[in-house]
């Protein structure tokens, strides 16, 4: 017999519902004994069924219990002759039921506890992961700030402030340029937005000729490293098609600034 197929057929659910005719019931009971996987699955089904029916509970009228107890405890007959053995067995049966019920309840209770702690543990693990991520993000930003600050404070770097042209008089951006190592960093103070198909392009003026210093998108903070440049006298930014062009579109110049003399 294929256990998985048997389980998938839904016969165990119908068994738990108490709906199978006697011969099919007997078959299921035989199979449960033979295949432990079926017993485990049945236990899960019974658990689900019990949980569902507990959800569907309706409190019966209080009188029902009273009537029931009255019917069960008829006026005690003091005929001691019949009392002994049945009484003993009844007590034993009662004790074993209580035991079974308590054990069942405890199993249910501890399983629920276990599930709950599992859920809580997963939550904490997720939170922990989230915090670690946040920490990393903050850490990266701090590293970036420290690196930027090191460049700004470094006297080897010359700051070139570029101010707006008539295209955008309010615009402003800066270049930090190291003459010796030829490194170039750009920082934006204010540049107007551009279309998606465009990019900013930084130009260095070297002996009166524009030299490409790299393209970049807006929307970053701090410093952005671009291409190394040798012997610049001034820097300018134009708006070009994405990827940059070989020579600058002068009509699209946003800012320009010359190196301080000396």
């Amino acid at each position, binding site marked *: 017999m294929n256990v998985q197929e048997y*389980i*998938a*057929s*839904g*016969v165990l*659910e*119908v068994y*738990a*519902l*108490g*709906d199978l005719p006697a011969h099919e019931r007997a078959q299921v*009971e035989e199979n449960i004994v033979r295949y432990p996987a079926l017993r485990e699955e*049945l*236990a*899960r*089904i*019974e*658990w*689900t*069924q*019990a*949980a*569902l*029916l*507990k*959800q*569907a*509970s*309706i*409190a*019966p*009228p209080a*009188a*029902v*219990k009273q*009537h*029931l*107890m009255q*019917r*069960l*405890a008829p006026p*005690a007959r003091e005929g001691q002759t019949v009392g002994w053995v049945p*009484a003993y067995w*009844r*007590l034993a*049966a*009662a*004790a074993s*039921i*209580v035991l*079974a*019920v308590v054990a*069942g*309840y405890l199993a*249910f*209770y501890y399983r*629920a506890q276990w*599930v*709950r702690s599992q*859920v809580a543990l997963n939550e904490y693990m997720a939170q922990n992961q989230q915090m670690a991520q946040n920490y990393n993000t903050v850490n990266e930003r701090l590293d970036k700030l420290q690196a930027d600050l090191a460049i700004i404070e470094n006297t080897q770097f010359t700051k070139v402030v570029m101010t707006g042209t008539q295209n955008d008089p309010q615009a402003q951006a800066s270049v930090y340029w190291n003459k010796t190592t030829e490194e170039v960093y750009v920082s934006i103070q204010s540049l107007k937005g551009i279309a998606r198909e465009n990019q900013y392009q930084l130009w260095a003026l070297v002996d009166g000729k524009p030299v490409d210093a790299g393209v970049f998108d807006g929307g970053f903070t701090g410093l952005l490293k671009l291409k190394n440049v040798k012997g610049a006298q001034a820097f300018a930014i134009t708006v070009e098609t994405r990827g940059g062009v070989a020579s600058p579109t002068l009509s699209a110049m946003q800012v320009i600034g010359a190196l301080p003399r000396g």
Partner: protein
Amino acid sequence: MKNKDTKALDYLYDHYAAALYGSVVRIVKNEDIASEVLQDVFLKIWERIGSYDPGKGRLFTWMINVARNHAIDKTRSREVIKSRKTDDIDLLVHKIDRTETGETHTDTIGLTEVLNRLTPDQRFVVDYLYLKGYTHTELAEEFNIPLGTVKTRLRAAMMELRSLLNVEDKE
């Protein structure tokens, strides 16, 4: 001796009566008859407790089977089966009272919400088999669904309920 006898029954009643009554009242659809059936069910359980075999399933399963079968027999004997099937049980579902057995489920989602998370097919079989007291063969015949399909749909519904109730039901 007699007092000790009834203590076990007392315990069973306090823990399970509301769940059994919920099933019974939905099947017989009359609170007086349901009360009568519930009494009979507990008497039956008490008489036959010796025949309960823990190897064949949980005590609760055995009890709910006794209750469900007794309730179904009752509706048949009263020949109300036709009206039962045409009536709308939803009215009763709204009367659901939380169980007063000491285990309060204040942090669980309600039955209706649980059922609403099932697919229409799944909700249909759970509704008819668990709440309206149809047997699976009756359901198959009346709605012209192959018996195998009823079973596999019930299986799918129970799988879904298992994950829904597992997390939600903080016993």
